[in-house]
């Protein structure tokens, strides 16, 4: 054991030292570059190019600014008429901010880094968890518990050492968002919650930046470009054209209980992969100057992996009265988005206290009761204790305590509740369990409110849910 710990520590230190040396090297290389608008031509290349040209009477033409290495490296996309040498120059000069280093942000930023986007900022407050890795492709097993922004930045640097990557390990909020976003030309919304989506929309409306917004859940994904302004693109015929923003289409946030999350509802890894890759494609097209007809401006892509359908639907035009993007916006500074959406931007473990202590038992108490009951059942021939698991059927199928029955909380009404009331009357004890001990309290409370006084005491709730069970009773029980 000692040896393992020692090795782990040593490896961590080496890794840290390597990272420091790499960033030192990166900075040195960067400072060595000659004065050049793109910062992409290093001295060696410049000197070589000049010599080469002097020797050659016919003059070798490398394009306007691109050095040899860049032509070679990006040749497969430069070959496309849609990108070309000029497009590549624009990509090398472009600065893109990716908000969220998760299921969308990882694939999106991989393609941006590969395409040679000059500067990429990547924002994420969170750290890498093992459950992220099936879809968050920049993180590896050894990145667990480290900053997602840092982990993503490290991988992106290993993909392209010619570009600048800036990780931001912060929760984006009203105080820091404008400062960070204003350093970039294009923003990618790869976030996972409603408050951050409204925050980014307003940031982009105020800073007049395009917002490439992707989202994914379960088997479905959605994608569109918000806040597009033709006046930034000289290829546009009508410079006054402006696409809708998020608020033009969705002026009001959805009720919090109608919003799903990847941790609660699940997501198939390739689904955000598809959407993230397309976010990168839209960013590349936008940077090289494609016009709004070719971009997902005023259109929403709906992807359903269940039957593999891609559907593009037409959105309403920009609202001339929009609170964020109209000529006379009412939102001129950022507000409190968690309050506006009545939801949290950060997934915190809720710790509800609905029931009073006499209705609650700890995992160890439950274990003892269950052990004792095995003996009593033998002598009594009657099951006296019932465990009611209120998680979804999918979760219940994944893992459960032996003998528990499944009554998902979202079907807790009508006949189902009557069934449970009958059971509470029959048994000595009915214990409600769920993942973390919040839904189980809600369920138990419903039953306590409905049942007659003398049976109220039969109802219990497992404090901390199955996470607590795994922590203090059964180490082999999966935490998810």
């Amino acid at each position, binding site marked *: 054991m000692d040896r393992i710990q020692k090795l782990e520590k040593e490896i961590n230190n080496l890794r840290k030292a390597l990272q420091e040396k790499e960033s030192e090297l990166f900075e040195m290389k960067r400072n060595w570059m000659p004065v050049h608008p793109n910062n992409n031509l290093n001295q060696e290349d410049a000197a070589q190019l000049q010599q080469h040209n002097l020797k050659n009477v016919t003059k070798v033409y490398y394009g306007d600014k691109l050095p040899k290495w860049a032509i070679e490296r990006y040749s497969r996309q430069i070959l496309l008429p849609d990108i070309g040498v000029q497009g590549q120059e624009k990509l090398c000069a472009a600065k893109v901010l990716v908000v*969220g280093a*998760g*299921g*969308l*942000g990882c694939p999106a930023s991989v393609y941006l880094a590969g395409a040679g986007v000059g500067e990429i900022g990547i924002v994420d407050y969170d750290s890498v968890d093992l459950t992220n890795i099936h879809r968050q492709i920049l993180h590896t097993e050894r990145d667990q518990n480290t900053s997602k922004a840092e982990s993503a930045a490290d991988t992106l640097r290993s993909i392209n050492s010619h570009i600048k990557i800036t990780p931001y390990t912060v929760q984006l909020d009203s105080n820091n968002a404008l400062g960070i976003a204003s350093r970039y030309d294009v923003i990618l919304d*790869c*976030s*996972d*919650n*409603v408050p951050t*989506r409204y925050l980014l929309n307003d940031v982009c409306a105020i800073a007049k930046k395009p917002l490439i917004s*992707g*989202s*994914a*859940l*379960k088997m*479905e*994904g*959605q994608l569109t470009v918000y806040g597009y302004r033709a006046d930034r693109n000289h290829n546009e015929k009508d410079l006054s054209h402006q696409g809708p923003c998020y608020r033009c*289409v*969705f*002026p*009001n*946030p*959805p*009720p919090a*209980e*109608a*919003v*799903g*999350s*990847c941790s609660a*509802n699940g*997501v198939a890894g390739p689904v*955000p992969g598809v959407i993230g890759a397309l976010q990168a494609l839209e960013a590349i097209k936008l940077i090289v100057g494609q016009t709004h007809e070719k971009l997902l401006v005023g259109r*929403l892509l*709906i992807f*359903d992996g*269940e039957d593999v359908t891609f*559907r*593009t*639907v*037409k*959105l*309403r035009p920009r609202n001339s009265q929009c609170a964020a993007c109209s000529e006379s916006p009412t939102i001129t500074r950022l507000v409190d988005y968690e309050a506006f959406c009545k939801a949290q931007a950060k997934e915190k473990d809720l710790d509800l206290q609905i029931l009073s202590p006499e209705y609650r038992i700890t995992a160890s108490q439950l274990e003892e009761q269950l052990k004792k009951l095995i003996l009593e059942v033998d002598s009594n021939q009657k099951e006296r204790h019932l465990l009611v698991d209120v998680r979804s059927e999918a979760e219940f199928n994944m893992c459960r305590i032996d003998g528990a029955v499944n009554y998902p909380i979202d079907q807790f*009404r009508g006949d189902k509740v009557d069934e449970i009331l009958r059971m509470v009357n029959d048994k000595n004890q009915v214990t409600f369990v769920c993942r973390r001990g919040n839904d189980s309290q809600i369920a138990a409370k419903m039953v306590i409110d409905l049942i007659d006084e003398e049976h109220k005491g039969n109802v219990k709730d497992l404090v901390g849910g199955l996470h607590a069970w795994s922590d203090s009773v059964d180490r082999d029980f999966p935490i998810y």
Partner: protein
Amino acid sequence: MAASVKLHLQFGGGAELLFDKIKKREIELPALKKYFPDCQHDKWNIRDLLVWIKDNLLRERPELFLQGDSVRPGILVLINDADWELYGELDYELQDNDTIMFISTLHGG
């Protein structure tokens, strides 16, 4: 007397969870006056359709689909693949064979 109207109804983005997890349905609305005898107009519009959906398809938690006489915020209504705002929203008169989609916006990443 206006005849019945056949529609393709589609639900997505999680909205289908409120409708027995069925994403696509073919429905046939009866003549409007048959369903709403006191109705002042002759043709089905989206406002009427929402009431019909509430009566006939919406089994549980209507507040996660409806708010007042419209859909709740965060659900996009599409009429033949275009935002219903382009067609007068609740007042749009349904045509035979229209595809009406209700898409809940996704927020995960």
